[in-house]
């Protein structure tokens, strides 16, 4: 950079070796003296300031700035990508938690809809196995079969479930059962009274009187207010008899009016 070539300052007809110093001007050789020459010193001269220096500095600055910008971009990109990676991990965990919750709920639902659970719940609510059903052929208007009332003692058996509970001792450490109990308690908080409905049992052939309430021991239950508007019972405490072992009272059944 600081070196200037001699091109363009070639001395007239003088051998190049006669010129000393990179920055020397073309010198006219002095006449030779016989006396030993004193130690020669390189003649210094003023070098004009490099005009291109500023441009060069600017280019360098640009280069450095670009480098810095590129590095910064890469850094930001890297941070954001690995930040995204952490985000992915977080979302994965969230997804997993939701999947687990969903799975737990699905299992609970499956357990509850298992036939033995339904039967046990039905028995708990005081439901009984229906009597035989008669049916009417709509074309001939004939009644086939004889209907009979359901008997109070005919509650569904639970032999399958009983055997399972007997066999399963410590295996049942699933908290699902407890959760279910909590859930059932919450849902029982606002039972809606069922609409008044007359007994659906078909009158049997040969003038058998229509059957009475389904369960013999069941009290008639609360009569709905006149006008048949279903009363919405909120915050009502049910008696043990009304609940009959269940969480909501059995629907009241009315005698058909003749």
């Amino acid at each position, binding site marked *: 950079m600081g070196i200037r070539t001699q091109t363009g300052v070639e001395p007239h007809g003088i051998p190049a070796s006669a010129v000393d110093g990179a920055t020397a001007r073309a010198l006219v050789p002095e006449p030779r003296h016989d006396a030993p020459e004193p130690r020669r010193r390189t003649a210094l001269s003023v070098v004009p300031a490099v005009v291109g220096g500023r441009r060069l500095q600017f280019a360098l600055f640009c280069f450095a700035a670009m480098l810095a910008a590129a590095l910064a971009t890469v850094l930001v990109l890297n941070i954001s990508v690995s930040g995204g990676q952490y985000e992915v991990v977080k979302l994965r965990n969230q997804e997993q938690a939701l999947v687990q919750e969903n799975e737990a709920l699905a299992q609970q639902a499956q357990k509850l809809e298992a036939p033995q659970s339904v039967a046990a719940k039905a028995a708990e609510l005081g439901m009984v196995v229906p009597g035989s059903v008669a049916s009417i052929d709509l074309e001939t208007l004939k009644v086939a079969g004889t209907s009979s009332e359901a008997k109070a003692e005919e509650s569904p058996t639970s032999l*399958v479930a009983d055997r399972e509970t007997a066999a399963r001792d410590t295996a049942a450490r699933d908290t699902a059962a407890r959760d279910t109990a909590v859930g059932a308690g919450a849902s029982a908080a606002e039972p809606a009274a069922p609409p008044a409905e007359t007994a659906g049992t078909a009158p049997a052939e040969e003038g058998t009187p229509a059957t009475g309430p389904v369960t013999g021991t069941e009290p008639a239950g609360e009569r709905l207010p006149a006008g048949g508007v279903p009363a919405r019972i909120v915050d009502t405490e049910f008696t043990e008899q009304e609940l009959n072992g269940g969480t909501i009272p059995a629907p009241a059944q009315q005698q058909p009016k003749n």
Partner: protein
Amino acid sequence: MAAPRTGTAGTRTGDDGARQQPRTGVRLRAGLAVALVMLLVLGGRLFFVQGLDPEGIAQAAVKNRIRVQTIQAERGQILDSAGRVLAASVERYDLVVNQRLLKPEFTRKNQQSGEREKVTIDQAIAELVPLLDQDAETLRASIVGREGAEKKGYSYVAKGVTPKVRNAALAVGIPSLTSEQRTERNYPNGSVAGSILGFMTADGKAAEGLELSQDAALGGTDGKKTYEVGADGVRIPMATMQEVDAVDGQDVRLTINSDIQWAAQEAVMAKQKQFNAEWVNAVVVEVKTGKIRALADSTTVDPSDPGATDPEFRTSTTVTQAFEPGSTGKVATFAAALEEDVVEPTEEFTVKNSYTIQNEKINDSLKHATFQMTAAGIFARSYNTGTVKIGSRLTNEQRYEWMKKLGIGERIDIGLPSSNPGIFTPPAAWDRRQQFTTMFGQAYTQTALHTAKVFQTVGNHGVQVEPSLIEAYISPDGTEHPVAEPEPRRIFSEETSEEMRRMMETVVDAGTGTLMAIDGYRVGGKSGTGQAAGPTGGYDGHTSSFAGMVPIDDPQYLVVVTMHRPKGNWRSWSVGDTFTRIMSQTLNTYDVAPSTTKSRAYKVFVGKNQKYGWD
């Protein structure tokens, strides 16, 4: 950039220059030396790394970063005909503690206040007691270790807990308590259909039932995920990554209806209790399609706890237990005789209490007066003597052929392992008495499913449809692949089937099956009490059964109830109520319309009087 003119002087090796700035020179040399040494070290290391075994070292480095994760294929579900889940895989955790690392006290962050608090192990155990449903002593033994025992580095605290319990247990904060994930099979219906589903071993291998036979479809193929992680265990985003997707298993949908299955299990369990029988089972089949709606056993394995059940009952007895059918076997004899046109249902016979043919004396189970009765009456009252009279009009080979066509002695493959073909030898091997006893269902064995198959053929207008248990396979993407329906085969003529059905109706109207009547429906069937051979060869027990169809004019469903080795007096044995209970449930579930036509039962006795006693 102008060169620093004064600075260059220092680097000159001139004597005066060195004298002027001696300290700088030394420092520079030392710095240079240090730099050189470091360069040498680096160079050496570079040579070591790149020159000697570059590939091996690069591999070791990658190996250090790389993680290979198996992506477990999800095992398919087993569903009932309505799509309700009978078996599904769920996520479960084993809780494991390192007793050696356990300290009597540890600190944790309080969940509510967010402050750190000190907790003793006893306190932590007390918190775990309600979560894991174990008593404190058991927990103490597994977490701390027994008094004086060597501390274990790996001790199970609880196995197979739900994710919820696991999270709660880990939140207690015992430092060396960790959890390990595993997949467990969950059977939400418990032991309902348990002997069909089978079960898995503790380490997740299929062991029995459909789980075993359908393992290839259910299992799927595991996948693999390869990626690189940084020191903190988080994936390096730009690094290599390979993923081979797992292929999840297919779901298997059965023909079973879990409601009917449950009702049938309840019914047979009640029957087993009543007579203290060895086992009672029931088969429910849709007559038109051969689809099995229930295979119920009085002792059913709970797939979540197979060890609690005898190995004998881990697969349904309806396919594993072969027995001598007794009088239900007369259906084959009568149907063959009708088809070969050697008898008419109304043909008259004189039926004595005992009948001797080729020096073999055939007795009826109950002493009775000599009756003038029809062929249908013999069938209805299930007299062996009359049956042999009719059966001996056919050759042994003829009867053997017909029974073979009905599937006796053949293995019935419905997808359950260890199904029993029964024993039915060809006529050449029959002894003198066997040729007659085979007419009324003795001296050969079959399973309850065989009985169902025979009745299905006779009931379905003479057309046999192989019984089936698997309805469809469902791919993970939801496409269904229904199992090809079995080819229907005509065995008997429509006329034979009709006559047989009327004869079966006679059984229920006026014969041995009066307890099997269902109000509003026309029922037809056949009862049977066969002698059961003991392990020593002699008969030492009985098998009481009833197979019936509804509505008998065009059967929709058939139910076979079999009771093996009941105790007490044989005259009190009846599976009638079990049959009606299961059949009623089936008719109800599938909305089968009640019969509006009148019974077409045959006359039992010749003449006007149809009311004779059994003596």
